[in-house]
């Protein structure tokens, strides 16, 4: 089954070492990150710890530090770095011709809490 990709924005729309927030109709926000290598990643904008806004965190390497309690979350997996444990939902990203696409099915799915 081939993925349906939804165009979201251009890579240039995302501040380097920053993020943009994608609002959804009934679901929690998605944070779209851009690191120093122009890698683009998308995670639910809720830290697995206490729901802090990862979009307002510090981006470094391929991680983001939650602004609330400094949990380091890996952008590839959405999972916290040891010794912290917990994951937040990650979203598939495709970058083509400088445009960022997210998986439409994932965006529309009812949120499944990842332990």
């Amino acid at each position, binding site marked *: 089954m081939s993925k349906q990709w939804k165009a979201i*924005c251009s890579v240039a729309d995302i*501040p380097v070492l*920053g993020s*943009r927030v*994608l609002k959804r109709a009934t679901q929690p926000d998605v944070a779209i990150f851009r690191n120093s290598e122009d890698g683009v990643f998308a995670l639910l904008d809720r830290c697995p710890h206490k729901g802090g806004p990862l*979009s307002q965190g510090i981006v470094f390497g391929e991680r983001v530090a939650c602004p609330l309690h400094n949990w380091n979350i890996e952008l590839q997996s959405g999972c916290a770095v040891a010794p912290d444990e917990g994951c937040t939902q990650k979203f598939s990203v495709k970058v083509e011709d400088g445009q960022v696409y*997210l998986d439409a099915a994932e965006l529309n799915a009812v949120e499944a809490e990842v332990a």
Partner: protein
Amino acid sequence: MYSPHKVKIAVSGCPRNCAESGIKDVGVIGVDSGWEIYIGGNGGIKTEVAHFFAKLKTHEEVLEYAGAFLQLYREEGWYLERTVHYLARVGLEHVKKKVLEDHAGRKALYERLLFSLDGLPDPWHEFDKAHVDARQFTPLTA
């Protein structure tokens, strides 16, 4: 603004002092007929009450006196010495002489501070100049 150690500054609009100006490196409290400046306070584990420094009429004077003190601290303070430790070392009288009594010296101190800050953009009011990407505050929709 480079300084020997961090400085924490507060301004309260009235004597109720919500901003806790009494435990700041430079604290300003608005009173009935002007502004009071306090210096050399410290919050944290070893809390120190700031010393009353001056009562001034206008906010321009507050900027000049506070700026002059900060510049004196920048020029005379040792690296990693908070203002509380700097004041303990040189004495409040020394600072009063240099900032309150020496009018020409105070103005010169303030000028030197302004010179070192000249051209620096204000990240709250000059987004472009300070390289703040304001788009981060605008959400996307799919």
